[in-house]
């Protein structure tokens, strides 16, 4: 992607459309984070494309003064794949929700990540179906009572970080709507990552699933439960930095620092080729409850789908020359009458 010196204000990235999420929705904060970041990303806005599926989050492209397409439920990663393959010079962003990405669009998500298509997928996870007014989603906690589960949901939710890592994602990170600094930092890292990026952003739905992320956003929870992952740093957390994460027999564990020597604390390395440790970190919580890893779990370089596709085209042009229709239609042998 070509970087051009562009100097935008946040308002330059705002479209003229009135934002229509419910008052108090976490989406407003995320939109502000995204617009602020885009103003500073260094890419001119005609080269930015937002593609979304269906759901509350999927309305975001309408509010961005960039190119955008609000498509159909679950298919945004596939549409975005077509966009980036058609013009690799574009900065292509998918905006999605937990239902859109993990339920109806699960197949497209895992294959885009596996292929390492150069698109950035932002999944706003509110653990509920908001736009259809409150059914349990594939990230809702087991036992959740909703309109469609009056006796409690009987489904084990997905762990989106684990899912993405299992799908060979080269960039996996998590933020939360209220933490604009962390979101901005992750967006920055994602934007410069050559390949697919999967970013889960916990997003409060104050109408249908209020306070779902309280354990990570409340005054006490924020300090007690957030395991802030920093590349190259020891993983330490807690109000008094009294907890740490170790890797024992390949498994991440939360330990009291008083119980171990500091040398055993895991030093976070986002560039590890083998995703096992990142996966193990993702298993420290199965949802936003108790100690939960936040930040970038994985960022590794591997060949992108885009580069491979264009290399084959360039090599073919170099070896065969530009296509000639008259030659093509005579390529199976001809005869004269």
């Amino acid at each position, binding site marked *: 992607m070509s970087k051009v010196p562009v100097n935008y204000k946040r308002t330059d990235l705002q479209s003229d459309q009135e934002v229509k999420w419910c008052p108090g929705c976490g989406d407003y904060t995320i939109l502000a984070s995204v617009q602020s970041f885009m103003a500073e990303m260094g890419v001119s806005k005609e080269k930015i*494309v937002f593609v979304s599926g269906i759901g509350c989050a999927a309305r975001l492209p309408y509010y*961005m003064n960039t190119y955008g397409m609000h498509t*159909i439920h679950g298919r945004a990663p*596939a*549409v975005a794949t077509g*966009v980036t*393959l058609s013009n690799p010079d574009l900065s292509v962003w998918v905006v999605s929700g937990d239902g859109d990405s993990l339920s109806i669009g699960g197949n497209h998500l895992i294959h885009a990540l596996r292929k390492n298509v150069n698109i950035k997928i932002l999944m706003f996870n509110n653990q509920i179906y908001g736009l259809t007014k409150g059914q349990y989603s594939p990230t809702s906690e087991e036992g959740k009572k909703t309109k469609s589960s009056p006796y409690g949901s009987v489904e084990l939710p997905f762990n989106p970080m684990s899912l993405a890592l299992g799908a060979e994602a080269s960039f996996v990170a998590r933020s939360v709507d209220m933490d604009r600094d962390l979101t901005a930092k992750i967006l920055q890292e994602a934007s410069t990552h050559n390949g697919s990026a999967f970013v889960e952003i916990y997003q409060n739905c104050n109408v249908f699933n209020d306070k779902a992320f309280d354990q990570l956003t409340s005054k006490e929870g924020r300090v007690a439960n957030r395991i802030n992952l920093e590349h190259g740093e020891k993983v330490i957390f807690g109000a008094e930095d009294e907890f740490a994460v170790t890797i024992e027999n390949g498994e991440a564990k939360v330990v009291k620092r008083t119980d171990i020597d500091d040398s055993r604390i895991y030093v976070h390395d986002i560039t590890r080729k083998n995703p096992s440790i990142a996966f193990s970190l993702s298993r420290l919580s199965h949802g936003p409850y108790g100690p939960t890893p936040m930040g970038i779990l994985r960022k590794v370089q591997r060949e992108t789908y885009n580069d491979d596709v264009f290399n084959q085209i360039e090599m073919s042009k170099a070896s065969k020359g530009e296509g000639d229709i008259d030659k093509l239609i005579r390529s199976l042998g001809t005869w004269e*009458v």
Partner: protein
Amino acid sequence: MEEPKLTVQNKTVESIPAVTIRFAGDSGDGMQLVGTRFTDTSALFGNDLATLPSFPAEIRAPQGTIAGVSSFQVQIADFDILTPGDNPEVLVAMNPAALKAHLHDLAPNGMLIINGDAFIEKNITKAGYKLDPRESGELDGYRVFEVPMEKLTKEALKDSEIKGREVLRSKNMIALGLISWVFNRPLEGTIDWINNKFAKLPAVADANIKTLKTGYNFGITVEAFHHTYVVDKAKLPSGEYTNINGNIGLSWGLVAAAKLSNIDLFYGSYPITPASDILHELSKHKNFGVITFQAEDEIAAAAATVGASFTGKLAVTGTSGPGLALKGETISLALSAELPMVIVNVQRGGPSTGLPTKPEQSDLLFALYGRHGESPLPVLAARSPSDAFYTAIEAARIALKYMTPVILLSDNYVATGSEPWKLPEYKDLPSLSNNLTTKLNSKEGFLPYHRDMTTFARPWAIPGTPGLEHRIGGLEKEEGTGNVSYDSANHQYMTDMRAWKIANIANDIEPLVLNGNEKADTLVLGWGSTYGGITQAVNRLNEKGVKVASAHLTFINPFPDNLAEILSNFKKVIIPELNSGQLIKLIRERFLIDAKGINKVAGVPFTAEELANIIEEKINE
């Protein structure tokens, strides 16, 4: 290597205008290859021809059973033909099952060449015969030639490096060599082809060439084959020809359309029979800038194609019936977003998995109406392998000019059958226009739904174009701005506008052309792959004094403007279709005429003879 002697003292050569040959054997016997080679040799010789491959959906169906029989029929002629023939005059049966499956089609006194070595008790029983058909009398009335193909193969390869079970894999070459002798076809082309194909496996190439020559020499040696036949070059319009099947014709048409529009081709697809060959063919031509995307599923294939269209590609997705069902929602998105896109549907027998390797025209109404909401789009159908080339270009022309998804129908008969095609020059093909723009179209900013009022097409501003940033989507859009609109009058207007846009295309397409006797009382109207059968049937009827005309639709939506007038000139309209009556519903509803259908869903195309008989009956009704 010793060349076969071409002079045989008592050889006679009878000139015949046409012959239909069917090769039949186990699906592992290589009958498709034998048929294709004989076809290509005949094409290069200058015959007109048409082919009908038929094979089971299973890759290796149970050996020796009727279910496992694969066949290839080719008609070669010294005149212009349109079908692969009705009843074959020559049948090559590699085993009892192939004989059982195909004997009933062989013309009376037809030539029957059987691989005698395969007629052992086990195979005879497996085929469902109680008695050995060679001894039961059921081959009476045919000219039977029993050839020990396996013995000949083993003998030919006794000194070869090929050993064991691999030896008999070459036995199809005995059949090809022998038929080449009987129809005076040279072996050189096939020898070159074998050497090329097995360049890295010289022992295999050598084995195939040896058996091919053995089959040919068997004809020289055995007096029974000394009466041979020749089908002269066809008196076709002069020019340069190639032999082409419909999947390749369609693929090349798409590549040409991209070049003609100066827009690169994007083809998104998921493997499905019988459309996969389009993906295979297009993925070879990356030097044309073609991007092929083998998607994770049918929906992703269509969705990526929509993304490519939004980003300025000639965006095409291809599939067969079940896949079209999965793509429905995405096509509606393209329709609502008013993006150019071509959806290729190579029809096969349905419903559900149906008959994946057999032709049927049963997706017509689905192509027209298989979407939610009011969602009209143009529907075109290719009528023959070479026509698929031009119809693909036409589908792209309409999509780009009118900013709409277009469904292009083919079927298994067009897709896998082949015919000679008089090659066009690229410079004579039409250039294709589009709605790409880099300019603001109003003082207030860019209006993505501000239409061209002759085509009703909206401008196509693609990502990367400075100043034209805009958002579109599946929600209803306000005319002009493209902003989300729930306004009731606007929805009515946009719905009407999308319909007008498609209806208006009728002014921009070739008028329907009449064939046969224009003053007849009866018109036979068709679409798609029934073209060859209908035209041949109508021509035959006129030759024998039965007055009848025919016309063949490329556009089923919108209909060409002159269709109403043409229909009004005939007292009787007959509509043959490989479905239970779909075009006929459209014609009856639109024109309020009492059209009569001829319908068949038997997994095989109409033969010209079959159609001629029924049409004559209906004329006399």
